[in-house]
């Protein structure tokens, strides 16, 4: 009887010891088997966050730097405009500087971001809040193009007067200048249309502002910019056509050999 009790006790103790030893060793085996506990999952998420945030910040910095660079170049171009007032240039320059300041401030904020979600939201605002490439840059360069068209029109107007003088002199000298006069008329017509087109372009885009995420406004801005760009394209084509007419007229005048009849030119112009 005592022997049985002693044996039972020994078996119980051995079983209990085995179970305890098993429980103690289990976590180590679990790790070896690749089982994940909550602590390990959280650590991996943190690692992922640490990995993503620098990438978002770096990407944002590149995007902002490129926009600031483009804005500075636009500002330099605006200052070269010849047919607008100082106030006009100053207003555009001020708007550009406001955008640069906004982007620079945003860059500082993104650099200090510690949360991926906030950083992503800030990154999105580079596009939605500013619309540098979608609005500001094309709007500024269309204004610059329109100003350039006006400059060319002015130069062509002066040139047209000189050519008219020569054609009239040729006519007075008895030369057939009908083709030259037709070319000059076309030249005048093209330059006049170029001026109209540039004015329309300016009127179309002068009051556009960033859409701030408003899709309807974004579409309206895009439509207006494309229409103005089309006006400038037509104006450019007009000027190219006028330029070709100039070549024709100059060649025609040389063929008339007007230098011999120059005295007629002088007399006619009196």
């Amino acid at each position, binding site marked *: 009887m005592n022997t049985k009790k002693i044996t039972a006790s020994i078996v119980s103790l051995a079983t209990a010891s085995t179970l305890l030893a098993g429980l103690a060793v289990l976590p180590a085996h679990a790790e070896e088997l690749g089982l994940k506990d909550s602590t390990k999952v959280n650590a991996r998420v943190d690692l992922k966050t640490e990995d993503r945030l620098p990438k978002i910040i770096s990407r944002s910095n590149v995007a902002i730097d490129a926009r600031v660079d483009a804005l500075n170049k*636009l500002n330099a*171009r605006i200052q070269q405009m010849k047919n607008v007032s100082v106030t006009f240039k100053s207003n555009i320059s001020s708007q550009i500087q406001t955008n640069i300041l906004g982007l620079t401030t945003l860059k500082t904020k993104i650099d200090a971001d510690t949360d991926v979600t906030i950083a992503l939201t800030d990154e999105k605002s580079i*596009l939605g809040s500013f*619309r540098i*490439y*979608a*609005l*500001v*840059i*094309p709007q500024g*360069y*269309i204004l*610059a*193009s329109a100003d*350039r*068209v006006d*400059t*060319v029109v002015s*130069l*062509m107007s*002066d*040139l047209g*007067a*000189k*050519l008219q*003088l*020569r054609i009239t002199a040729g006519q007075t000298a008895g030369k057939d200048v009908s083709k030259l006069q037709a070319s000059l008329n076309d030249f005048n017509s093209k330059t006049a249309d170029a001026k109209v087109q540039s004015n329309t372009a300016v009127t179309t885009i002068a009051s556009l502002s960033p859409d701030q995420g408003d899709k309807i406004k974004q579409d309206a801005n*895009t439509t207006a*910019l*494309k229409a103005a*760009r089309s006006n*400038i*394209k037509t104006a*450019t084509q007009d*000027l*190219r056509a006028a*330029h070709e007419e*100039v070549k024709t007229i*100059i060649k025609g005048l040389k063929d008339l050999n*007007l*230098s011999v009849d*120059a*005295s007629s*030119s*002088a*007399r006619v*112009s*009196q």
Partner: protein
Amino acid sequence: MTTKATLGLIIIIVLIGLAGWWYAMDKPTETPTTIQTTNTQSTSSESTSPATNTTVTNSSDASIDQSVNSIDTEMKGLDSDNANTDSGLNAQN
């Protein structure tokens, strides 16, 4: 020296003087300064002599060439402005 010879010498000197005077009067009208001031607008000086008018013609050619060159330069600038506009419009963001 006889009287006839003296008289002939005086006549020759006077003729040379007159030729020099005519040459001096004619030359200044061909200077570039006159050209630049008369190339776009007609003036009375343009009809004073054939030499003047020939010069005006040349100055007009130069003036026209200058205008064409200025236009060419501005047209290149216009192409650059248009390219920058298209670059923005194509980015769309």
